[in-house]
């Protein structure tokens, strides 16, 4: 017979358990009681089986178990059972917890909602608006879901020219959360110029269990962290999900998501027509106003010219009257001058009986100019004679 130390014995037990249970595929179902978290790290609770009055002590870390838990919840746990040597206690080292039944799911949903809300993930002030005319949309849904067809149908009915980059993901089941997280990572990891203008995360309606991926904390945080605005549309009108609350735009159905993300062609056509109509009106009224202005300008100008031409006529006629008087005055002056000049003509004097005496071509005005014996010339009105000076007399 072998003798084992306590520690070795417990190690043997743990090893045996581990080897015999790793291949086994099972989960343990029970109700949570005495749920505690110590030092924000270690989770411990009892899993109770009311009917059979059995208790399984459970241990986990907050990093392994993200599902919000509280006493009274019905859950299934997966993990490795072992005896902790130090305290001689048998415990299940839990690696995964799944909620069982609508009640537990509802409760976990409410707890997580409260937590995320307190953290500000639903804050309306951080919600971004969508571009009015998106060029590119990232569609995150399953190609097998009715939501996929509904969304595209309404999108095509309303609007065109959009590139839809479809990320095919699982919207329920085990792969749903990782594939949705992967899609968010993919779109946000694209170069800015290749990124869609908005992301649409959508699926049809379902129970809390079907919608679990849309109520998952990591998915909610991925929506929150997305640098691209997110439209979330989950389920029917009345369904809600945590992803809805975090999203920038919450649409009620997949069809509604299409309505929220693109405008309606006919509305935009109407708007364009309104704008061109208004421009035309403004332009016409401007032209009209200018026409009136031009009209009145032309009238003013005509009036001006009429008035001016009257003035000019007046000036010209005044000028003519004045010039008449001036001309006759001028004529008189010229005539009187002419008379004067005529009266000075020596011939006229000679005609009156005077004679003109010249000596060597010079008019003799003084007897001193002459000496006795000089030859002089005497000019009469008619004819002339040469003469000799015989004697001088001083005057």
């Amino acid at each position, binding site marked *: 017979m072998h003798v084992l130390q306590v520690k070795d014995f417990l190690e043997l037990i743990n090893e045996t358990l581990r080897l015999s249970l790793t291949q086994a595929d099972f989960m343990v179902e029970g109700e949570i009681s005495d749920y505690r978290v110590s030092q924000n790290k270690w989770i411990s609770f009892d899993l109770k089986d009311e009917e059979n009055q059995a208790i399984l002590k459970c241990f986990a870390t907050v990093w392994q178990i993200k599902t919000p838990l509280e006493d009274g919840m019905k859950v299934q746990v997966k993990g490795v059972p072992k005896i902790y040597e130090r305290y001689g206690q048998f415990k299940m080292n839990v690696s995964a917890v799944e909620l069982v039944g609508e009640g537990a799911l509802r409760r976990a949903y409410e707890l997580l909602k409260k937590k995320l809300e307190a953290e500000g993930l639903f804050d309306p002030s951080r919600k971004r608006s969508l571009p009015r005319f998106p060029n590119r949309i990232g569609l995150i849904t399953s190609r097998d879901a009715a939501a996929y067809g509904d969304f595209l149908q309404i999108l095509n009915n309303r*609007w*065109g020219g*959009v590139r839809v*980059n479809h*990320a095919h993901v699982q919207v329920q089941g085990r792969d749903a959360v990782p594939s949705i*997280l*992967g899609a968010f990572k993919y779109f946000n990891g694209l170069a800015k110029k290749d990124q869609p203008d908005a992301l649409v995360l959508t699926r049809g309606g379902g129970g809390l269990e079907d919608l679990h991926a849309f109520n998952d904390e990591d998915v909610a945080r991925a929506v929150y962290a997305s640098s691209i605005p997110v439209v979330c549309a989950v389920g029917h009108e009345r369904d809600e999900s945590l992803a809805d609350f975090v999203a920038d735009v919450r649409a009620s159905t997949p069809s509604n998501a299409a309505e929220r993300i693109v405008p309606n062609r006919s509305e935009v056509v109407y708007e364009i027509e309104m*704008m061109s109509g208004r*421009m035309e009106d403004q332009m016409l009224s401007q032209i009209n106003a200018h026409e009136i202005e031009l009209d009145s300008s032309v009238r003013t100008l005509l009036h001006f010219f009429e008035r001016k031409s009257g003035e000019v006529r007046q000036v010209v006629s005044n000028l003519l009257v004045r010039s008449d008087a001036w001309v006759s005055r001028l004529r008189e002056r010229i005539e009187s001058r002419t008379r004067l000049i005529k009266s000075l003509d020596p011939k006229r004097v000679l005609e009156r009986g005077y004679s003109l005496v010249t000596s060597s071509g010079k008019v003799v005005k003084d007897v001193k100019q002459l000496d006795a014996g000089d030859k002089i010339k005497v000019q009469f009105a008619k004819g002339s004679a040469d003469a000799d000076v015989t004697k001088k007399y001083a005057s």
Partner: protein
Amino acid sequence: MPPKKKADFAAAFAELEKISEWFETEEVDLDEGLKKFERGLELATDCKKKLTEVENKVEEIKKKFSDLANE
């Protein structure tokens, strides 16, 4: 700036909106108004034409997203 391609519907529409706003808020100068009016009509025609001819294009991204999440 004339609209270059289909993707620029948003740009064309935005320019049209700006011109339309100009007509509503500014003292319209006839010469400038005529220029803007012509441009506006051109944009409106382009926009309306684009609305009738374009359709949406769906491109499937060939990736396994559940693997991507853990990279």
